[in-house]
């Protein structure tokens, strides 16, 4: 259970409509999801991410029209957990493939083929290998979707009118309200110092 919950931690955390553990910030509007800032250039965004992390914020997210290499590390994402899922999928698939054949040819329907032993493990290897690849591949795709939280038909940032530009030529930085460091007014003013062209609240 604890392994599973850790695996899916990133997925489970952003529960919509439920603001996370929030420090007493005085005048928090009731349904605030976070504060978002819009930047015109990728360098400004990367710089802003560094500044935000330096300020002590941890629960932040960035949105860009294309992948920016430095961003992954700057934002503080650890190594992906997909490889572990692929490994588990591969091992499960290998065991499944082998014992499927073992069970059919030794337990369920033993058949004498040219005097070979029922457990002809050598001839089981190709199917075992194929099942390993198949399960690992499925684990990779499903694991990626689950860890990404996809499919996700709605997300609070969609309520920001200009957010659609994140898939064109604008770069966005979001600080989530459940960040322990988050204070509605302070965070808003801090983000205005980062060189953003626009800062706005994100409603849940």
């Amino acid at each position: 259970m604890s392994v599973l919950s850790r695996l899916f931690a990133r997925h489970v955390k952003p529960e919509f409509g439920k603001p996370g553990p929030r420090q007493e910030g005085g005048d928090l509007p009731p349904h605030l999801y976070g504060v978002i800032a819009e930047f015109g250039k990728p360098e400004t965004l990367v710089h802003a991410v560094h500044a935000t992390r330096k300020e002590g914020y941890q629960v932040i997210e960035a949105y860009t029209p294309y992948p920016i290499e430095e961003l992954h590390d700057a934002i503080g994402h650890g190594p992906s957990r997909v490889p572990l899922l692929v490994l588990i999928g591969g091992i499960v698939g290998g065991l499944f493939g082998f014992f499927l054949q073992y069970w059919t040819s030794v337990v369920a329907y033993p058949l004498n083929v040219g005097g070979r032993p029922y457990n002809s493990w050598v001839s089981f290897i190709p199917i075992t290998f194929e099942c390993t690849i198949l399960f690992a591949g499925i684990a990779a795709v499903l694991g990626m979707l689950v860890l990404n939280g996809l499919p996700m038909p709605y997300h609070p940032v969609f309520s920001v009118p200009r957010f659609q530009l994140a898939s064109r030529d604008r770069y966005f930085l979001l600080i989530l309200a459940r960040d322990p460091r988050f204070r509605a007014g302070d965070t808003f003013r801090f983000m205005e110092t980062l060189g953003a062209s626009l800062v706005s609240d994100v409603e849940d």
Partner: protein
Amino acid sequence: MTESPWAPPLADLAVLGRRGLVVGALAGVVSAAGLVLNPAQFYRSYLVAFVFVLGVALGSLAISMLHHMSGGAWGLVIRRILEASSRTLPLVALFAVPLLFGLRHLYPWADPARVAGDEILRHRAIYMNPTFFTVRLAVCLLLWTVFAQALSRLSKKQDDAPAPGLERRMQLVAAPGLAVYCLLVTIASVDLLMSLDPHWYSAIYGVYVVGGQAISGMAFTLLVSLFLVRKGAMRGVLQPRHVHDLGNLLLAFTMLWAYFALSQFLIIWSGNLPEEIGFFHDRLGGGWGVLSVFLALFHFAVPFVFLLSRDFKRDIGKLAWAAGLLLFMRWVDLFWLASPAFHPGRLSVHWLDLTTPVALFGLWLAAFARELGTRSLLPANDPNLAVALEVHAHG
């Protein structure tokens, strides 16, 4: 050239070469004593040692030709190691000479008495006879050397003066070179190893040896890279992303070898036909079975598991462990291919089996160290070098 940041560490290479020479010469003297005491065993051990050293040099040549065809930063940072290794082929050809005196100790087809009493060998005698065998081996070694020298000479030309079109010319050598290499390895491996068993044959044998040689070449190159990094040469050149690519190639070659090995085993085992199964019957019983399991574990399973890890492949210090293991297992694999033919039914390791590879590899290493010292460690004028050495945020 000594001003260049990529100058070879001549003093360190001289030490390496001298050590190789001393150890190789000592082991050579001991092995020569073995030649007097037990000539048959000497030639059997020598054959494995020769094919092992040949595999390191040829594997390096093949990887360098592969890189000329594919391009990529991984190949530029190791190209000089591969080229130095391929330039030793004339010495390897010299190593083949003693074999020619021991053919009748090795091959049933070289023993007139056995040929007279064996109908299949009589039919094959037109191809499998000492004269034609010698001619074939000489032609193989000559052609490999020609391709290695042609590539090396063009590379030298590029060092002396950058000229457009040189990379293209190297590609024009490498493309037919790769095809010729594969065909000739098939011929040579049938001659040198497969014909130890008078009747057995397997169509996948040649590519099985090709896969093994690729492992030999890559494993040796990684060990040399670690040596150079430790000696401070190539500082800042070999980045984790290069090492990662080399590690992935080592993984790919290991899986390729295992794939060929399993294909051969699976088909012959399933068929269970008298003219084929003898090969595995010899290698699965009488103590040789232990060696077969050892081979499956340490030539494939253990390196495979370690080479799956990204962190392991990005650190040359760790990756070199897998390379060292695989280089040793290359010798075990060749020993496993050859020796059961001489001692069927009983696992047997003679002390000559250990001294002859040390002798040949030591002497060969001395030649390699000398060749590596003759050029800059990177092809400085290659148009792709600047991109290959760029430092990325992710290393």
